[in-house]
């Protein structure tokens, strides 16, 4: 039974992805493009060469961070939709330190990363405090704070730290940039993301605090009854998840973008939530899903360039993957489905006997 449910939770995303691609191919065929050429160029674009792999991993880095942010919060039953705002606040503070403090090189990098994480954690704490002490819905607060952070970043890049003719901040000094891996576009930020993922995994599944945090997420009332400090866990999960997002923001700034500009980090928060859910709130699975989505995005650029299908087609495919997977995962959790699966395995066992 356990094995078959594991199999199902692996099969659902795979089938969903296939379905989404089939529909995408139908649309492309209707538009007169050859779906096979399109899929081939998608693959080449994402993994065709070492350099493309590097680009894909670089694109996946911020998604991994926001995915882990969502993953951690949801494990504690906290619907933190503010990954984007926390990501941005982290990058804003990081940008100030990297460009204004006068410190450069490794000390600056370390300071920036820590400060970014702290900023993200504090920004998330606003929502946490309002939830715990004022009984407010954290979803709405975090969504509102996302908008505030986006606009605040706008002030920073159009006014306070503006550089030259376009609304954008000055660039991070070369010595403060994260170094590239093997000369590819992927930087140490990706390693940082993997480490963060492993740490979250270890914390959630191999420490007693992590166990208690998951217990709070599974059943808050029962956890309270058992004497867990539920409020403290909720606040902690806000701070830690915000810190992960904030760290992601600084890593993205120091690793890939180097400056704040209109559109920086846009959509990463919600993307992260989707990654975490498709990864079924498992930190390592979330990383895999984030890499898959990054591949889809990087590859779709080549696909569009090669076949001329509008970019919105690849957006539709991505949305369908989410639509199908989430529905599929919900469906396999239904009691009817579990009963059905149970019957199926019973039958097999009988046959074997």
């Amino acid at each position, binding site marked *: 039974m356990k094995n078959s449910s594991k199999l199902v939770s692996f099969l659902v995303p795979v089938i969903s992805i296939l379905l989404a691609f089939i529909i995408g191919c*139908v649309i492309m065929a209707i538009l*007169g493009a050859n779906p096979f050429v399109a899929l081939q160029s998608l693959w080449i674009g994402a993994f065709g060469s070492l350099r493309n792999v590097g680009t894909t991993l670089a*694109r996946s880095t911020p998604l991994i961070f926001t995915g882990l942010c969502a993953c951690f919060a949801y494990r504690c039953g906290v619907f933190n939709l503010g990954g984007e705002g926390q990501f941005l606040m982290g990058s804003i503070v990081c940008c100030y330190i990297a460009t204004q403090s006068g410190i450069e090189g490794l000390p600056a990098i370390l300071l920036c990363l820590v400060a970014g994480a702290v900023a993200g954690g504090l920004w998330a704490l606003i929502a946490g405090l309002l939830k715990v002490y004022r009984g407010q819905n954290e979803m709405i607060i975090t969504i509102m704070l996302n908008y505030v952070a986006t606009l605040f970043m706008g002030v920073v890049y*159009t006014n306070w730290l503006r550089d030259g003719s376009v609304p954008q901040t000055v660039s991070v000094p070369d010595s403060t940039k994260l170094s590239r891996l093997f000369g590819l576009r992927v930087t140490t930020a990706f390693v940082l993301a993997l480490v963060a993922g492993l740490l979250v995994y270890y914390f959630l599944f191999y420490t007693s605090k992590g166990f208690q945090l998951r217990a709070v997420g599974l059943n808050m009332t029962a956890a309270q009854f058992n004497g867990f400090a539920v409020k403290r866990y909720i606040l902690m999960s806000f701070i830690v998840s915000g810190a992960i997002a904030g760290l992601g923001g600084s890593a993205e700034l120091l690793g890939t*973008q180097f400056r704040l500009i209109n559109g*920086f980090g846009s959509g990463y928060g919600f993307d992260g939530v989707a990654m975490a859910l498709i990864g079924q709130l498992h930190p390592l699975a979330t990383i895999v899903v984030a890499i898959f989505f990054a591949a889809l995005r990087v590859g779709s*650029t080549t696909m569009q360039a090669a076949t*001329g299908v509008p970019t919105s087609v690849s957006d539709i495919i991505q949305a369908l993957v989410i*639509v199908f997977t989430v529905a*599929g995962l919900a469906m396999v959790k239904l009691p009817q489905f579990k009963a059905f699966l149970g019957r199926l395995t019973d039958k097999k066992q009988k046959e074997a006997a």
Partner: protein
Amino acid sequence: MKKLFALLLTLAMVLSLAACGGGKTEAPAASGDKPAATETEKPADSGKTYKVAMICDSSISDGGWGMACYNAMIAAAEKYGWETAYSDSIDQSAYYDNIVSYCDLGYDLIYAPGNQYTDAVLQAAEEYPDIAFALLNGAESTPAKAVNSNVTSLLPNATQIGWIAGALAGLMTETNTIAFIGGMELDTTKGKYEGYKEAAAYVGAQEGKDVKTLDIVYSNSFSASDKGIEFAKAMMDQGADVFFGDASAVDSGARQAIDEANAASGSVKVYDIAQPSDSLGQNECIICSQVTDNSGLVGLSMEAVENGTFGGETIYGTLQNGVLSAGAISDLVPSEIAEKYQGYLDQMTNDTFMK
């Protein structure tokens, strides 16, 4: 398993129905959707068909900036017999990826219409030394930053653009108050505003008027046409009667509000000057357009690529080289004013304006 499939199939059907439902109505135009590989006739004397690709963060069907830049590329490509491709509505994080995709596909020229692509272009230019990059509205200093000197800035003169609109605004205003709506806080936008303001003040003074320009406002978006409506209404309440802008779809919202106000008052008393293509007739209130012939600039880059002389320079677009001009003038402008306006335009071309 049956149930699982049934459920998934239902979902798939709903979605594909929605998609097909869209598809049917679009059938007649569907063929027009593959311009990415638009075949243009090869010039007989050349063995190679050159290819140009454009990247754009807004939609190329936005009726404003994106559309004008796309059409400029198409026009230039037709003239020189190039193949074209484009990627639009791309996220800021994907600029570089998009550019590199085209580089890998062997495109000869990458056309990036906006200064916001500078970082991505410079990085790709470093990695692909054999490919030419044209940055419309790029900074003067950018070409020098490209280590392989394969980047060219195409720079229409923002001040002159402002002058072209401002001179007519100064002539036409009756309330002596004119307005400008900006999209993003770009230096080119500020340059246009300053040119507009000073030209209107100068021309107004020649006519014995004290013309004031309201402070520049920013919609912070090139797509929020509703913001354009509200800005225009607010500015008309402040007495503005000639509008100019730099904000794509936002401008079309402003024109809509101006048309409504004119309809309510029974006569056309508030005017708009359009840009960057000749849009006379699109709205009742448009009295003239400031025209920027970006296709000329793109064409110059193509010529340079074909001749192997591309790179490392800034190509300016001015009234003098014909990239900038004033479009057709509407009947709402009395002929004597149109004549005076032409006089000022000549002064600008001869470099004697405001001197």
